[in-house]
């Protein structure tokens, strides 16, 4: 194999784990248009008051805003 090819191969194999570990870290994602999301009431009292006022049925979800006590993740 040509020396240049060997160097390329060596450098590539060194860079690949670095790239993988970087990609594992959180990366900022910019979006031009945000996809539509559900608009939530965050409390039962307010949401129920709104449902009674408008006569609309209720979609209710409850979840923990932490995972293994680490916040920032449902």
């Amino acid at each position, binding site marked *: 194999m040509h020396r240049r090819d060997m160097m390329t191969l060596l450098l590539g194999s060194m860079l690949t784990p670095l790239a993988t570990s970087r990609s594992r870290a959180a990366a900022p994602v910019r979006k031009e248009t945000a996809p539509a999301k559900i608009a939530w009431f965050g409390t039962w009292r*307010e949401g129920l008051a709104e449902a009674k006022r408008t006569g609309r049925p209720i979609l*209710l979800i409850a979840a923990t805003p932490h*995972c293994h006590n680490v916040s920032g993740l449902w």
Partner: protein
Amino acid sequence: MDRSFLSHNEVVSASRSFVCIRLSTYENEEEAKLLKSLFIGYSGDLENTTFALLDPEGKRSLVAAGRSPDRAFRGSTDVPAREMAATMREISAYYRKQGRGGDTELILPLNGTPRLALNVAACDNLPLVALHAPTEAERSRLEKRLATLAWSPELAGRAVYTVLTASSELKLNRPPKEQGGVTVVAPDIYGQTGTVLAEIALSEGDAELKAKLLAAFARFAPTEKDSRSHIFTGRQKGVYWKTLLPVTDPGPPNGRRPPRF
């Protein structure tokens, strides 16, 4: 929380005819009692997640309640979400025929304390909009103005809202400059601190308020998270979320599939 149901575009569209309430489990006693009345799992106690479709009085479950929509709309593909959306459309059509189901307006969807709201915003990967005003009357007026905007097609579901009564309630890179108004905050990935993206004064008109909110939302950069590294790195950094109530979820027994939202 798996988003395969709640992020499906048909479910989002159907949700506009519902009042959508998302509670943070273990953060409020009254809400904990309600959730237990709707669903108790194998543990016999409140579990991390609950799902229900209810009548407008909040008393009757319209489909099988459970840890997630998966119980009522079983499956692991795109189809169950469509089934959920179709069921939601039927339900809302029923209540509309009853002469009910008017527009959802005027109530700003607040998310509990500023501390909790910042965490929820981080979980949702959304900006936090904190309103504050020197008097109760001004706060109430600002809340009504924001409520109209919050439910508009351009802004619905794009932020988490809270009321600040003191700047110390949020850990920000700098305190709000304005005496009263709206501060748009980008939460850090753990929802423990925030960076001010924009400040809009109380004196700004509705058109300017909307334009500045949209501009601030466009500046917000959502961060993709990998749950394993998020938890690992969070623990290394000493991030710890203390719940108001004890966590009673037993965790998944061997072979049990985690809930899917």
